[in-house]
């Protein structure tokens, strides 16, 4: 046949039809900031190391932690984990036990003798760090990483500052602290103990920059009539004596009164119990809810038998009698006033834990460096004092006083000092939008209760071993929502009605805007809020 039976037109694939032209909204992969990372005073990328822990990559997880914080095992014990308070999972079935995972990974690092990677950075600058508390050691760690030479002077015999002299052994065993400090020492930081800097002037000419991290080690006092009888001491002095002279623990008698509401007060009370005191009372002027001490610490102290007497101040100590003034608290207006009533309790020892102030004598008379009314050292946004090249951080400057905050200050100070030495000013990077709970689609997270392990042990100075097993670390880390950052669940790829998402060999995803019609299913079915619809 010369003529075809029918006219046949070749069909073509619909790939020729670029439906992307329909789109009015455009999905984009974004990184949002997980709340845990936002709130971490040390600036840890918590989500990232949890993700590595999920895969059982504990060494890599540890390396990720120490990018921002050289003290994981210590943090896993003494950090007040603000991260867990804001964890989005807390609004679902209990926040991720970040603190305990960090501790377990930190302990793993000590057991396996993991060490810091030495950096290749080079510099001919020399920096003096004064004080070996968390802030000073952290600054030294980072400055060393940046290639500088670092001298660190510590006035005491032992290193660690408040981590040693402010945190009792049962919360932070000294072998853990020592191991984490030694790692920093091994980087080549020149540490000199028993070297008190009395006047900074004497040191300035030897260094290109100085970081003052001398902490706040003087116990604050109040004027109270004390007649002879009860032993009266400061919590800080008690802790220091027990560290420097561990064989001769003080005898506090049968009943002890601790005055104050912060973590130091709680630590002092629990230490008193461990020293054999039968009866420990904390006296605090405001209500329990106002106590600056961390809630878990308060709970643990209560379970150990510490009694908390709120809305009372100590007016006089007379022999074994402690006279308390009762206070009234007006809930509505938040006003505290004396009720006029008195109360008498008995104590063999009274321990004051009402705050600490700074010994700023080393900067006195130095031109440029100013101190606040409370004796704290003034610094600018770059943590530099009024004298060029002299920086300060930690408890010595105004701000929050926790170990984690001190580590954060140390890190920031190191960055600022490094920038200063290289001739520019440190500017923090811009922050992404926060991935709050509303941005998540929790349908895809199986309910799974948080694994809690009580830290309460026997009433002695031994720490209770509560670390997770390797499997438990993985299981708890798996509870992380990965807020704001893709964890490769492939929901977007699976659900796209237009097959407009390409999955690459390495698991990464890419939107094919040739075909994406902009329906937005990918964004609404993304569990962790890592896709944003834009116009």
């Amino acid at each position, binding site marked *: 046949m010369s003529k075809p039976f029918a006219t046949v037109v070749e069909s073509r694939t619909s790939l020729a039809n670029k439906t992307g032209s329909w789109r009015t909204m455009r999905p984009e992969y974004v990184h949002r900031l997980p709340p845990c990372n936002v709130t971490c005073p040390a600036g840890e990328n918590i989500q990232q190391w949890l993700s590595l822990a999920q895969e059982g990559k504990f060494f890599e997880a540890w390396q990720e932690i120490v990018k921002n914080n050289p003290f994981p095992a210590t943090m896993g014990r003494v950090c007040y984990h603000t991260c867990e308070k804001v964890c989005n999972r807390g609004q679902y079935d209990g926040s991720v036990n970040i603190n305990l995972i960090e501790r377990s990974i930190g302990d793993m690092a000590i057991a396996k003798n993991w060490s810091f990677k030495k950096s290749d950075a080079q510099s001919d600058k020399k920096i003096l760090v004064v004080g070996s508390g968390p802030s000073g050691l952290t600054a030294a760690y980072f400055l060393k990483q940046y290639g500088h030479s670092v001298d660190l002077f510590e006035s005491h015999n032992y290193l660690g500052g408040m981590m040693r002299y402010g945190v009792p052994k049962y919360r932070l065993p000294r072998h853990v602290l020592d191991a984490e400090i030694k790692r920093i020492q091994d980087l080549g930081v020149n540490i000199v103990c028993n070297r008190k800097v009395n006047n900074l002037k004497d040191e300035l000419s030897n260094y290109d920059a100085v970081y003052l991290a001398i902490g706040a080690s003087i116990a604050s006092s109040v004027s109270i009539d004390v007649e002879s009888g009860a032993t009266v001491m400061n919590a800080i002095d008690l802790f220091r004596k027990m560290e420097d002279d561990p064989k001769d623990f003080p005898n506090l008698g049968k009943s002890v009164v601790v005055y104050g509401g912060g973590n130091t007060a709680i630590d002092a009370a629990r230490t008193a119990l461990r020293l054999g005191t039968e009866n420990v009372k904390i006296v605090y002027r405001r209500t329990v809810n106002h106590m600056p001490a961390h809630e878990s610490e308060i709970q643990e102290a209560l379970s150990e038998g510490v009694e908390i007497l709120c809305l009372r101040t100590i007016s006089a100590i007379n022999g074994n009698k402690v006279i308390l003034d009762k206070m009234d608290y007006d809930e509505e207006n938040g006003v505290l006033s004396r009720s006029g009533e008195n109360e008498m309790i008995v104590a063999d020892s009274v321990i004051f834990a009402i705050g600490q102030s700074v010994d700023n004598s080393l900067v006195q008379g130095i031109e440029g460096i100013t101190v606040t009314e409370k004796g704290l050292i003034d610094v600018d946004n770059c943590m530099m004092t009024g004298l060029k090249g002299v920086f300060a951080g930690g408890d010595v400057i105004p701000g929050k006083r926790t170990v984690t905050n001190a580590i954060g200050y140390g890190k920031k100070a190191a960055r600022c000092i490094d920038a200063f030495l290289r001739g520019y000013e440190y500017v923090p990077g811009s922050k992404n939008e926060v991935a709050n709970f509303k941005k998540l689609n929790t349908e895809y997270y199986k309910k799974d209760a948080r694994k809690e392990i009580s830290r309460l042990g026997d009433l002695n100075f031994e720490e209770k071993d509560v670390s997770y097993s390797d499997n438990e670390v993985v299981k708890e880390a798996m509870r992380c929502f990965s807020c704001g950052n893709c964890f490769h669940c*492939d929901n977007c790829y699976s659900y*796209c009605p237009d*097959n407009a998402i390409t999955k690459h060999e390495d698991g990464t995803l890419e939107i094919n805007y040739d075909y994406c019609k902009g329906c937005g299913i990918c964004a609404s079915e993304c569990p962790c809020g890592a896709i944003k619809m834009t116009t």
Partner: protein
Amino acid sequence: MSSLTMGNRFGRNTTIQSSIDRPNTLTSGHRACQGCGEGLAARCAIDAAYTAAKGKIAVVNATGCLEVVSCSFPDNSWNVPWIHSLFGNTAAVASGVAAAFKNKGQTDVRVIAQGGDGGTTDIGMGCLSGMFDRNDDVLYICYDNQAYMNTGVQRSSATPALARTATTMPNSQYNGSDPETGKNVPDIAMAHGIPYVAVASVGNLHDLERKVAKAVNIRGAKYIQVHCPCPLGWGFPTAETIRIARLAVKSGMYPLFEAENGNLVGSTPIEEQVPVEEYLRVQKRFAHLFGKNALPENIGILQKIANNNIKKYRLGGMSDE
């Protein structure tokens, strides 16, 4: 991290859709509306069938949305042997295709018929019943978007009670589709005693893929009905398709179950039943059930339907009475 997502980094309990080498039997460039539940369900179902049959499938398509959007001449979105004949004869054509493969000795080729609810529950009902009756070796998949969508949202026999469509406009006398009408085709299929009947949802791809794979490996007539929300016809934002599918299941309005030889053998339990209102309120086709002129008993009618489903299909767990 969570086995409820479509895929994960650990390769645990992942869907075919999440796999990098999924067959993509329905490829990009099709003209389904933004957020189309049916287009997505069709790709998932046929990908699952393709995988289960190791690539040896032939697909017969009824007239309807799916056919219109996937083969507007000269474009074709199907990457598998695919044929379209008429609106109502899909089951019959599929029976013929299956018979042809049988005669040629190619019994490894699995035949799938597919269509929307109109072409299945209304127009194609006679042919479908015949296919069931003869127990032809065909898997019939009905993508149920609960009305005739591409012609302008007219009511079908799968339209749920009280839904607004172009032909069941609520007014002073009517409240949408009459609750006394409609038919339950999965039950009708079960009554034929065919080897396998299942109801699935585009909001649960793990379950959908499993049911399709199971059906492909069974000889004889199989029927799977997939709930496919339609943003345009039901009136909801295009991004909400999956959420609405999920709400239908969680409220009991769309029971997921499977039956073998006419007997219920499994159902997807509802862990926490959500009130039907949550499902209805987000759809404009039920908007007349809310607002100041709404009759309060209407929600009750739908809640009763959902509660009956839970009892009838044992969505509270198979041990329940």
